[in-house]
């Protein structure tokens, strides 16, 4: 469970709902008579500016953490080739021939080694999502026909990692999965 995201959302949601409820209650009480503004669209400039500043700070903090910049200047020690097709993942330590795709039965990577997944699709769009042993989503990229997406990741904990398809790809989408081991 990604608690931090859920908690962040809940805090923001509760704050904004409280503001709304409070404002609503002030309009119900009888002791004030039309102290509101004649034109509600006036004097909102400061609100916009504050909001803009908050959003800019949030953006500048989060953008450098985007997956495109992760491990960009390092040399991966292992590459796993992935070809997704309806409805399974072909994973191999070697390059996969699209005409006769064959994968390795077991994929193993070492803990703390930098792995590069080279992900493509042989038919429709698929998702390539890596779930840790506790079934928490930790990394993903898309498998798109005609393109190879390179996803780099360093697995800290040993265990069995699962791969689920996260882009709707047809009637057996929900059972399209694979796994690999981190030693």
């Amino acid at each position, binding site marked *: 469970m990604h608690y931090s*995201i859920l908690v962040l959302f809940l805090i923001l*949601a509760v704050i904004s709902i409280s503001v*709304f409820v409070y404002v609503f209650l*002030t309009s119900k009480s009888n002791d*004030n*008579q039309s102290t509101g503004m004649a034109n509600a669209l006036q004097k909102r400039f400061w609100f916009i500016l504050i909001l803009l500043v908050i959003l800019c700070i949030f953006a500048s903090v989060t953008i450098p953490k985007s997956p495109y910049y992760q491990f960009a200047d390092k040399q991966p020690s292992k590459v796993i080739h992935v070809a997704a097709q309806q409805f399974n993942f072909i994973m191999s330590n070697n390059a996969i021939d699209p005409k006769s795709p064959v994968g390795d039965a077991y994929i193993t990577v070492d803990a703390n080694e930098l792995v590069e997944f080279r992900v493509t699709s042989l038919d429709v769009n698929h998702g390539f999502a890596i779930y840790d042993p506790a079934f928490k989503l930790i990394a993903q990229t898309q498998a798109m026909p005609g393109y190879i*997406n390179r996803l780099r990741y360093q697995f800290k904990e040993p265990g069995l990692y699962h791969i689920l398809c996260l882009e*709707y790809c047809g009637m057996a989408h929900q059972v399209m999965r694979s796994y690999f081991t981190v030693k």
Partner: protein
Amino acid sequence: MIASRLKKITSLWVVIVLLLFVISIILGILMRLNQGDVIQLSPVTFYTDMTVHGLTMISIWYVAGMAAVNFIMERYVTTSKPANIIALVFTLIGVLMLWASTFIGKFHAGWTFLYPLPFKEMLKAWATPLFLFSIAVLGVGWLIWCVSLIAGMLKKYSLAQVFAWQYFRKGPKTETPPFILISMITLVGIVTCLLAAVILLVLLFAEYFSKGAFVNDALLIKNLTYFFGHTIANEMLYLGLAVIYELFAEISGKPKWKTTWYVALAWNCTLFFILTAFFHHLYMDFVQPEGLQILGQLASYLASLPAAGVTVFSIVVAIYRTKINWTLANLLFFIGVMGWVVGGLGAVIDATISNNFVLHNTLWVPAHFHTYNAMGNVLFSLGFFYWFSFQFSNKMDDNKLSALKLFFLVFGGIGFLAAFYIGGADSIPRRYSNYPDEFPLAKTLAIIGGSFATIYLIGILLFFVNISKRCVKILFSRSS
């Protein structure tokens, strides 16, 4: 004063939208129950339902917004009734074609029909072309409607006035009502995304009819798909906002809102942001250049500025320590804005690339867009429907049921959405007909979601009965 023909067309829209809404909600509940293992649907049936649910919902709340905007626009300019009727007919035909391609032909590629999935095996070979033609029919009808409304506005206002550019100079001589400004901005956005759909369909048909001699680029098609899909889903909310700008003050017994320079600036900027925000659907396609990904994040953030910065604060300030005549209509608007803000928060979290890395295509995605549809846009339109249905009757609102209706909507909505949000944070995938056992929470959450959605449905049914009774009366009243 208001042409009785427009009154009748609008009431027909209201009845059709509500009827289709009830059907679509039932499809949604069936999906959640299937995910919770309460009922057993075959995966193809599930994904067929999902396709119908998605596209019908998009269609009806889009046309609901359009019908409302069209009705109110008659106060300022003359609107074309034939265009309105053409849109109605095309929408009905489009939806019927959609249902035929899905329920009979078992087209199940999802409402986003992401290439090349539609060209893979569907049960019936004609299902895919029929589905694509249904989109084409809907698109053409809506395009005609949009163009007629834009033409109507341009007849009265100049190009500069309709975008409220005169407010950028000191002492503007003419006034542009906020309603006209927002309608124009929104309609131009809608025309743009409908044109994207046209290009998308041309490319898809080219591949279909050339029998594979011409092959599309998957990345290009994905960009075009979300240009159309994301933008129309977003713009339909703004149609609702246009109505709120016009009606909220009026229903609350307050003076009308007036455009100011930064309202004009904010909404003009929206036009740009809204057309580039769709890039956030492609964050996980690392093939997309980083520049566009970052533009996607910034545009998604900034698109909230005019919306939140102007609309939300305006509503809040308009109400704060002010005596308001609360009726069901403006309460719906108010709660709708609240739901929209909460959904927007979920959206901003997901539109952050580093969060999207672990949230993309989990239940977080349906969580946020259901929030600002089911708890935002639907309430905007219901507010309008309610106000509209009472416009032409002498009877006053019976308040007995009002609180109950709202309770059902809000209580059902919150429970239904909470199940989605928790599921999303728990990494549960979206668009799964059945959940793997490794997600222990998934089935429970699905049952909770389905149950609360049923409560929400009861609220909608109460509205449906009440509003459509009045609308049918308007429909069959003798023209005066």
